[in-house]
């Protein structure tokens, strides 16, 4: 055994202090006398120095001396030399971004990680971090089963976790942030891919990136399966916007596909789909009030149906049918005194100054009062919007003033427009981006095996792999395409580089001496505790 700081042994001199101190504070011995009668009469005096007793070999004193000696030893830093190499703390961070699918690099990264794990790092404390799909720490089995995800992986959280867990962090990717030691697996460049897509307002808009030389590519556009193609020219190393006007009034889906012939087809396709119905259809449940039917029918483009899924469904004192937007009209039980106030909202556009023409209104029933108020009488809520449901408490009886509301068709025109903008828009889903599904719909399954997706607590759908997913909703199932549209993944080139740090070299694995300071400190504490207990017991 050796000492890191032998000078600390001078602290053993404190044992002499302990002896002096114990002399000074000798505990009074106990003597039972038949009576204190005579002893009380004897005057007390301070004991002379020569009368101090020699410290007895008491256990307390022995333990105290032991505690002091152990504490001094702990300060001296005792250690025993060892020949066993010290394990290093090494973390491997694996990038599983979608672009690494190109050229099978993700498999090479996994194989390299396994080689390091089982080989040069086998004597070290290894940690493996990857985001497949979310940032996590992997064990050996998890590493062996690691696969790619079709999204961009943010490396910063992984690197931060790895830096906390290890002294050496090695990134396996195709590019590395500054200051990070990495084994990089580059690939051929020149990828062409779709990086953005939006559909709406009678237009299809896309951004197409080209990481290679100037070239022409064929772009296939499919609207509800009807296919057209055109050739577009792409500038070198840049991005171009592409758009096309189209009649999308009745269309349910739009898809774009590039014919690039590159080794990374994942970003060559993108799609958009309507989750609601495209047609401006309406249904009425409950009392089929002729004025309501007439007003709805007066809105341009609205087709009235008797049943089935619709864009708008109105329930007059009844639950509305399945629809992207539902309006429930409650007949008031009594008139609310006061003048109604119409608040500004797309649903009340053009009605703000005509509140006095609303006719007889009342307060909504308690179960329907939650949501954003649209019309109120004092504190009472007459109309509220809750998600995709509108509740209105207004009397439709003509004898009580309903026909006196001349702007009623304007209100229904607002409702239809609002429903179209909400559920009727085209949705473009990207991997790694949460998407709020319409109320009443849920993802049933992925159309391809091995797909990775999840639902958040709030019901948002998040796909980690590209492909088609089936969404179940009131009107039936609908195919929901999810494509890779992250611009950062379209550049597949990266670079090839070996790490600056060679895990096979022995640096950092110097044998570590077995330090005994902790044990000595523990012994000191234990002895001190025992001494204290003994002293308490004796008292």
């Amino acid at each position, binding site marked *: 055994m050796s000492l890191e700081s032998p000078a600390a042994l001078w602290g053993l001199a404190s044992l002499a202090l302990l002896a002096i101190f114990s002399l000074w504070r000798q505990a*009074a011995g106990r003597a039972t006398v038949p*009576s*204190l009668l005579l*002893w009380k009469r*004897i005057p007390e005096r301070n004991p002379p120095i020569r009368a101090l007793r020699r410290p007895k070999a008491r256990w307390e004193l022995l333990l105290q001396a032991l505690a002091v000696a152990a504490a001094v030893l702990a300060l001296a830093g005792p250690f025993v030399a060892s020949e066993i190499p010290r394990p290093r703390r090494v973390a491997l961070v694996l990038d599983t971004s979608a672009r690494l699918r190109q050229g099978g690099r993700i498999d090479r990264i996994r194989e390299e990680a396994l080689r390091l794990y089982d080989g040069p790092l086998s004597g070290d404390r290894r940690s493996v971090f990857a985001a497949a799909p979310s940032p996590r720490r992997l064990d050996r089995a998890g590493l062996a089963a690691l696969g790619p995800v079709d999204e961009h992986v943010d490396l910063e959280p992984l690197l931060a976790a790895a830096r906390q867990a290890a002294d050496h962090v090695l990134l396996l990717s195709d590019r590395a942030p500054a200051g990070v030691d990495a084994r990089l697996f580059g690939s051929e460049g020149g990828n062409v891919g779709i990086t953005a897509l939006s559909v709406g307002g009678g237009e299809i808009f896309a951004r197409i990136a080209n990481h290679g030389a100037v070239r022409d590519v064929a772009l296939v556009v499919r609207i509800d399966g009807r296919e057209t193609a055109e050739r577009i020219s792409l500038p070198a190393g840049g991005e171009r916007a592409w758009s096309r006007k189209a009649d999308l009034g009745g269309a349910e889906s739009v898809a774009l596909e590039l014919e690039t012939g590159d080794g990374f087809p994942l970003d060559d396709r993108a799609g958009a789909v309507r989750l609601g119905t495209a047609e401006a259809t309406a249904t009425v449940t409950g009392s089929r009030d002729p004025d309501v039917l007439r007003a709805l029918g007066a809105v341009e483009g609205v087709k009235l149906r008797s049943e089935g899924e619709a864009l708008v469904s109105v329930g007059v004192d009844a639950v509305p049918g399945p629809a992207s937007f539902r309006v429930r009209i409650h007949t008031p039980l009594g008139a609310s005194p006061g003048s109604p106030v119409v608040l500004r909202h797309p649903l009340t556009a053009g009605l703000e100054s005509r509140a006095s023409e609303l006719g007889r209104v009342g307060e909504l029933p308690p179960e329907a009062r939650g949501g954003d108020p649209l019309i109120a009488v004092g504190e009472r809520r007459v109309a509220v919007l809750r998600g995709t449901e509108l509740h209105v408490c207004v009397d439709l009886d003509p004898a009580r003033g309903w026909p006196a509301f001349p702007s009623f068709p304007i209100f229904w025109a607002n409702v239809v427009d609002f429903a179209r903008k909400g559920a009727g828009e085209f949705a473009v889903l990207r991997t790694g981006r949460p998407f709020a599904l319409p109320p009443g719909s849920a993802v049933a399954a992925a159309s391809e095996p091995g797909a990775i997706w999840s639902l958040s607590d709030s019901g948002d759908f998040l796909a980690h792999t590209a492909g088609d997913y089936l969404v179940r909703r009131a009107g039936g199932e609908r195919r929901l395409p999810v494509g890779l549209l992250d611009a950062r993944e379209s550049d597949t080139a990266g670079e090839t580089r070996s790490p600056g740090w060679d895990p096979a070299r022995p640096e950092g694995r110097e044998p570590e001496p077995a330090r005994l300071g902790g044990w000595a400190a523990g012994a000191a504490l234990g002895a001190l505790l025992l001494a204290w207990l003994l002293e308490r017991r004796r008292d």
Partner: protein
Amino acid sequence: MLFDEAFVRKLEALRLAVRRSVSGRRAGERPTRKRGGSGDFVAHRSYAQGDEFRAIDWNLYGRLGQLYVKEFAREEALPVRLAVDTTPSMAPKFDFARRLGAALALVASQESPSGALAEIERLRLGAPFLPVAPARGLLVVVSDLWDESLRGALAEGRSEKAVIHVLSPEELAPPFSGKLRLVDAETGESRVRFVGDEERAEYRRLLAAHCEDWRSWCFDREINYLRCASSTPLEEVVQVYLREAGVLE
């Protein structure tokens, strides 16, 4: 058995000494002022109604023509009460005190068998200790006399009394020294103090004064007083010291 055969025989040769005549309920060997019984002739007196006819001295009647009855000295047993201190302060010398008490009970039982010996044998340290002097007879108290209230009990009654002051060697010469917590065996009261040669010498002086105070107090009240160390052989105490002190004869 507290004593061996030889010691018992020596005890049988002894008896408790009293200065005054005694009076008790039982007939015994002690002369009393009472007349009657079958003891030695004391005097004649005139016959009175109720006297026993057999007490009439017919010879005197023949000579004097008057009825006289003979009076004899009545011998009665000595009422003896033995009180052995059982308070906690007696702990180091209780065995000695109990054996001493038993020896005295054995001596007393020769005159008048009683349960005193059995009572002494049953005594346990910590039992209540309340010496009460008999109306007449002898009270023997064996104690360390640390309880000053004993003076009151000893001062009461007209009976003869004897006090045997027993002290242990540790009381006579405290063996301890240094910084000590002295604990009163009787009260549990404690006091931390230093005890050195000076303190021990002062203690011995005060103890001697304490014993002398008891001795003179007993002397003033015609109480036999004997001080002895519990380390003294019991036979020596009984055969020598108690006889010298006039407790035994």
